[in-house]
Structures are given as C-alpha cells and as structure tokens.
C-alpha cells in the first residue's frame, strides 16, 4: 500500500505544472500591425484570403489548397493529419488563419509565439463572419465588408427548387450505389438547399455527413438526387452515374428521381466561390421533374 501512496503523491506533483497550462495560450499577443506573412492551411480560408486581396502576404498554404493558381504555388505545410510545424516556423509568419478543426495546430503555433486567428466556415453565416474577421485583422476591413455584402447578395434566397426534396451525395464512386455519403443537417449544403426552397431528404440525420444505405434512399424517396464531385466529370461519366442510379432504383422500386451531377474543385469548398455552387445547384434543381436528364453538367 505504501507504494500506491507514493504513486499517488507523485500523481499530485504535476498539478502545479498543469495548472499553469492555458494561461499563456489564451492571451495571444495583441499585435496591432497588419500581418505581413500569413499562413492559411484550409482551402476555404486560403480562398478567402486571396479574395480579400491578401494573396501576396500568404507565404504558405496547406496540402489541399488547389485554388487560386497563385496559392497552389506557395510552399506546402502539410494537411490536417500531418502538419509540418518546422516548415511553418521556417516561413517566419506573423499570423496563421486556421479553422476550429485545426485547434491542435493552433495550440502549437501559439506556443511558438505565432499569432493565430481562428475562423469557422461550416455555415453561410460563418463564411460571412470569417470574411469580415479576416478583413479586419489584416487591415482591409473595407474589402472585407464589401466581399461579405457580395456573398450575401449572391447567396440570397430564391425559390428555384421550391418544395422539392433533394438528396446530396458527395464523391460517390462509380458503380452501383450501395452506400453513399450524404450531406446532413448543419452543413452548408443543407443551408443552400433551404435557400433554394428545397428540403434536404436527410435533414434529420445524426451526423454532418452520414453514410447511408440504398434502403434509406428508397425510404426517403427524394425528388432529386444531386451528386457533387471535386473532379471534373465528363459527359460520359455523368451518363454513367445516372445509369447507376436508374439501375439501382429500378430493381427495387418504381422510383426514378432525376440525377444531377455538379463537379468542380469549388463544389466542396465553403469559401468565396460558394455563389458558383449556389447557381449550379439552382440550375440543376430548377428543371421540372418530368423533363429528361437535362443540363446535367452545369458549368456557369
């Protein structure tokens, strides 16, 4: 028992040490000066920074950044799984703009005395707020407000798809669909659907992007199936995808919702190119249900 006691005593030792934790982290050094060397890891944040005209000041970006082309040429700093702290330190940045999912990276950077600005970008309101916040911190508040208004206007509610139930699947591989990843509630896709007057067929899902089976698709019988892909889909691939669904659903029930495909590297990023996705969705969902697979591939 004496051993256990000794162990317990040792266990108390780190307490004072741990108690100090957080204190230096939570008070980032207030630096009034406009940051000159900025790190952005997430594609959405990077796109916002470039849209605000801060592109010249962005010195390094995350592995997943594809757009704009100038950003794609910046030094790479790893992804969420394998952030490269050393590479970040080498760039001697004075500001890192991160998402809440990058909290672990943020903590490390703060300890290295690098200022971190955290913005959210899951909802449309988040996006507008992020634009304003970044604009303010980087001394371009006017441009920030302007971009915010632009976005607000471009994403204004319309009723192209009024009353239709829509299922959005993301990155579905070719072939007969057995299980698919769908956009659930709380996602920006859900919000975009609402603004178009449509209803998300999986509004009540428990996860943001739940994996669902074909059975569920039948149960919900959506009016439209909308596939979203990062990779540009050829007309042939689009036809193939429509054929996949037709076959899967025909064999099980007399359900034949039109299948629309939207593709492009902008289609999965909740950034300043969302209006483009919004327009594409409006166009894809606007066609009357009776019409044959119309303009399946939308490229505004």
């Amino acid at each position, binding site marked *: 028992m004496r051993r256990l006691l000794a162990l317990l005593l040792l266990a108390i030792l780190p307490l004072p040490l741990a108690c100090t934790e957080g204190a230096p982290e939570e008070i980032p050094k207030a630096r009034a000066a406009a940051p000159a060397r900025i790190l952005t890891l997430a594609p959405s944040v990077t796109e916002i920074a470039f849209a605000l005209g801060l592109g010249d000041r962005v010195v390094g970006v995350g592995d997943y950044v594809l757009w704009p082309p100038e950003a794609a040429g910046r030094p790479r700093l790893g992804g969420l799984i394998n952030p490269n702290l*050393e590479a970040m330190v080498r760039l001697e940045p004075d500001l890192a703009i991160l998402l809440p999912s990058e909290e672990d990276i943020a903590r490390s950077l703060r300890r290295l005395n690098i200022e971190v600005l955290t913005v959210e970008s899951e909802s449309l309101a988040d996006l507008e707020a992020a634009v304003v916040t970044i604009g303010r911190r980087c001394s371009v508040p006017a441009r920030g407000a302007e971009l915010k208004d632009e976005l607000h206007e471009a994403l204004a509610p319309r009723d192209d798809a009024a009353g239709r139930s829509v299922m959005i699947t993301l990155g579905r591989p070719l072939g007969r669909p057995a299980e698919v990843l769908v956009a659930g509630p709380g996602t920006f896709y859900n919000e975009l659907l609402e603004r178009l007057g449509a209803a998300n067929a999986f509004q009540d899902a428990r996860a943001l992007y739940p994996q669902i089976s074909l059975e569920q698709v039948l149960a919900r019988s959506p009016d439209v199936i909308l596939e979203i892909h990062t990779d540009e889909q050829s007309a042939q691939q689009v036809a193939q995808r429509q054929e996949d669904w037709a076959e899967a659903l025909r064999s099980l029930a007399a359900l034949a919702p039109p299948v629309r495909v939207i593709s492009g590297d902008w289609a999965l990023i909740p950034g300043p190119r969302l209006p483009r996705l919004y327009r594409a969705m409006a166009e894809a969902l606007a066609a009357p249900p009776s019409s044959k697979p119309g303009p399946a591939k939308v490229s505004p």
Partner: protein
Amino acid sequence: MSASICPRRLLLWLFAAWFVVLFTAPLIGGQTLDFRELWSGDPTTATIFWQLRIPRVLLALLAGGSLAAAGMSYQTLFRNDLAEPYTLGVAVGAALGVVIAIRLAPAGSFFGLSWTSFASFLGALAASALVFGLAQRRRSAVGSTLLLAGIAVSLSCTALILFIQYLSDSTQTFRMVRWTMGGLAVVGYREVLWLLPWLFGGSFVLVRSRWELDLLLTGEELAASRGVDLVRLRLTILAATSVMVGAIVAVAGPIGFVGLMIPHILRRWIGPTHRFLLPACLLAGGIFLALCDSAARVVMAPAELPVGILTALLGGPFFLWLIFFERSD
C-alpha cells in the same frame, strides 16, 4: 538463453547511446539543421532546434523507454511473450478515453489535468482492471486467458472508437484519426515535463518490484511460497504501468509494439533478470522510438509519417515472427 553480453557493460553502452541520440537525433529532419546557423544564433533555426526537435526527441526517449518497461512487466507478470500495452488493450483503452474526451470536448480541466489526459488515464486503468478482472475470474492458465481478455477488450474498445468517430463531425473525427496514429510532435517542454513524474513514478515502482518479477520467472506458486503477495504484486504493477501508458497515450497517442520488440531483443542480449533488463528496456526503448521518429521525419520529407504507423509497420511482422518461428529454440 543466458546472458551472452556482460549486462553491466551493455547498460553502460545503452546509457551512452541514449545521450548520443538525444543530441544527434534533433539534427535530423525534413531539413537537416546547419550547426553553424544554430551556433550563430539564427532565431528560426534555434526555435526549430530547441522548441521542436529537442522536446520531440526527449519525448520519444521517455515514452519509448516506458512503453518497453511496461511491456516487459506484462510479459513477466502474465508469462506471455506477446503481452504488451497494445495487445493487452491498455493502450487502446486509453485511446478510447481520449476519443470520448474529444467527442464530448468539455472545456477546461479536471483537477489540473486536461480532460484528454484524465480520460486517457481512466481508459488505461479501466482496460487493465477489466482485463485483470476477467482473467482473475478464471484462475487457471492466467497467461493465455489474460491475453485473450486483452484482445477482447482491445477489439471492443476499437469498435467503440470507430462508433464514436462515426457519430462525430468531421472536425472531431480528423483529430481522433490523427491522434490514434500516434505522433510525437510537440512544441516546447510542457508535455515532457508533464510526463516526467508519471513515468518516473511508474518506473520507480517497477524498479522496486524487480525481485518479485524475477521470482515470477520460476512460476507463481514458487513465488507465492517465497512470500510474494501475488494479488498485490499484480495490482501494483498494473497500476504503475497503467499510469505510465495512460500518460504516454494522452500525449503521443497509442504507439504499439515498442513494448513487444524491445524487451524481447534485450532478453536475448542480457538475460531475463529484471535488475538489468528493466534499466536496459528504459534506455533501449527510448533509443528505438527516437530513431523510429527520426526515420519517420525523413522518409516522406517534407511530410512527416506518424511514428505510430512506423512502429506498427515494424511490429506486425515481428509479432508474426515471434508466434511462428521463435518457439523453436
């Protein structure tokens, strides 16, 4: 199976190697550091060296050593070469704790411990208590029953981890996935300092139990007849190792197979007496993990491979080799 190298000399070599690794491994990385720049006081190089690489190598040295010592203790305690924190479900239990903590993500701390660390301890303790309890119910063949109980606990915890990941949003899932791969990237010395008392405390208890562990080598019944309180010994060692493993998992995630490979190799070199084996494990486990981590920084440069993946890649084949080819001698 007796010692083929003078144990004292080997310990001395390991001790020297430990320090050599501490000061050379930090120079290795995606980009090799230039000593002259460090010397001339270039702030960026200094930050990388002192704030990123030295703490990281220190963490590897401490964590690796403790994992090896914990594995060694389990192998002796349960008379099974395949027992280690990972196979007995202790590391996975701690991982489950952390995943739950990430999912529920309560802000702040609990008695000075961050929630993730606290959950990690709790998970490690709960898993070892469960494994121990299950094995205790069936007194016969403690070793193999225990390993089976460990595997069952491991699988259940893994399933729960996957379930929780499924329920979580992508942000949390990413953190969990990253964290379950095991990684040693730290900034500054806070984690290292935080780990020290736990690891020292646990190692101290193990060192004090070295005689009892030796006695177990000739069988539990003989050990008991010589005056060893077996139940107390098991509880003491499980408590000490749970604390060590829980602390390591809280900081670095579950890193597997160090506790399997290192004690096994060292046993062939310096024999099974714990007086020598335990310090050798503490030193060599650390050296091994630090070298693995250095390799993990280099092989995919500029990207970094999480070290848990590398040790698992080495450990899997070793595990198989142990099962199928080792028995022959």
